């Protein structure tokens, strides 16, 4: 069976509920099954990328640690909405993970080439 193009569109802040971490776990599973996985952080989802998180302070898993596993699962197409980053005053050096900033037009093209889009 051919690998599917699956985009994880992550738009939720990291600790309001467990959606974000569950979506990331699901992305790791898709990576294990050698699907063509990409991840786009958008809107409040870009807060998931911020360096220096410590979920243990509120007895939660640190989402930054989960994310650092992504490249080890062959998930290397990691993107962030450049508008969402700028709106929140986030620079690339503030982030725990190397991501490629995408313009709105680039995001439009990314979505168009997917077989499925999964949300957090």
């Amino acid at each position: 069976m051919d690998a599917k193009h699956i985009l994880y569109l992550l738009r939720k802040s990291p600790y309001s509920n467990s959606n974000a971490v569950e979506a990331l776990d699901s992305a790791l599973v898709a990576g294990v099954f050698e699907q063509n996985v990409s991840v786009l952080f958008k809107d409040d989802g870009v807060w998931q990328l911020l360096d220096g998180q410590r979920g243990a302070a509120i007895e939660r898993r640190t989402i930054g640690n989960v994310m650092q596993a992504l490249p080890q699962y062959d998930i290397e197409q990691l993107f962030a909405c450049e508008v969402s980053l700028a709106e929140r005053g986030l620079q690339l050096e503030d982030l725990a993970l190397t991501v490629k900033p995408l313009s709105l037009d680039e995001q439009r093209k990314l979505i168009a080439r997917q077989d499925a889009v999964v949300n957090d």
Partner: protein
Amino acid sequence: MATLHVVNNQKALQSCLDVAADDDSVLLIEDGVYGATTNVARALLVLAPDVEARGLKERIPPTAESIDYDQFVALIETHKPIVTWC
């Protein structure tokens, strides 16, 4: 195939519109239908039962096309990918 964007709240609508291509379909469901009550500069679809439930029938402009559940299913069959904005 064009993309179907399904929007279930008004706050997510702008993020969707920012990246929706001109030939994509944008369907408002649940609380997303409130998004059709203000002018939006593109064609929108709304799920009729959600509009009716919220008393919005007279507030949705004629430019927004009302669809039923069967038509919703047909849209899913004729679009790829389906993107949910929630």
